[in-house]
């Protein structure tokens, strides 16, 4: 069984990312969307937490949401994969269920 977790909140405003990461099991995936994409950026306070998480879970970020917010792809933490909406659909299909951390 594997879960695709989606996080749509900035980790600098809400605790959704932390709550999600503390319950995401090995083999599951986290997709950052909407304001959640701010967690995917290098040189920011959440980078160490994300790198630690990347050891056991797959991390993704929605490209269109990054782009809309003026964040170039080269600012994304290594190990976080960028996907588009079609990729989001694929992730939802390849995991057993989707858990939205609203």
């Amino acid at each position, binding site marked *: 069984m594997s879960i695709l977790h989606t996080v*749509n909140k900035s980790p600098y405003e809400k605790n959704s990312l932390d709550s999600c990461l503390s319950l995401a099991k090995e083999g599951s995936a986290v997709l950052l*969307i*909407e*304001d959640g994409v701010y967690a995917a950026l290098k040189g920011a306070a959440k980078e160490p937490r994300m790198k630690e998480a990347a050891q056991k879970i797959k991390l993704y970020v929605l490209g*269109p949401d990054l782009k809309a917010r003026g964040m170039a792809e080269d600012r994304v933490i290594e190990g976080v994969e960028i996907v*588009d*909406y*079609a990729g*989001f*659909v*694929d992730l*939802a*299909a390849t995991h057993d*269920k*989707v858990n*939205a951390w*609203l």
Partner: protein
Amino acid sequence: MKFAIQVNEGPYQHQAADSAYQFTKAALEKGHEIFRVFFYHDGVNNATKLTTPPQDDRNIVNRWSELAEQHNLDMVVCVAAAQRRGIVDEGEAKRNGKDAENIAPGFRISGLGQLVEAGIQADRLVVFGD
């Protein structure tokens, strides 16, 4: 694969309605089936045809209606949530003694059982909200 989509927020205030639309569109383009799009909480506001955004902005309500027409989408608005927020079709208007209806084309008002049924019948439920 059969997807069910749940939309918890209204148009414009949060990105949730946009994300849900983009996801639904991408899933359809990839050949997946959308079992149902269910609008709950303030999400019911996606269904008001009285929406009049500025011309240079997207029309979120029309966009849903068009997608529904193109793909024969089942778009359901929760009746209890809709009643609280003033989204009514002709039947609901009559039943509740209102002199107007405002539901946009392609949407229908029904019970929460439709969300539960979507959870049962679809392979995946994807929730968009705030």
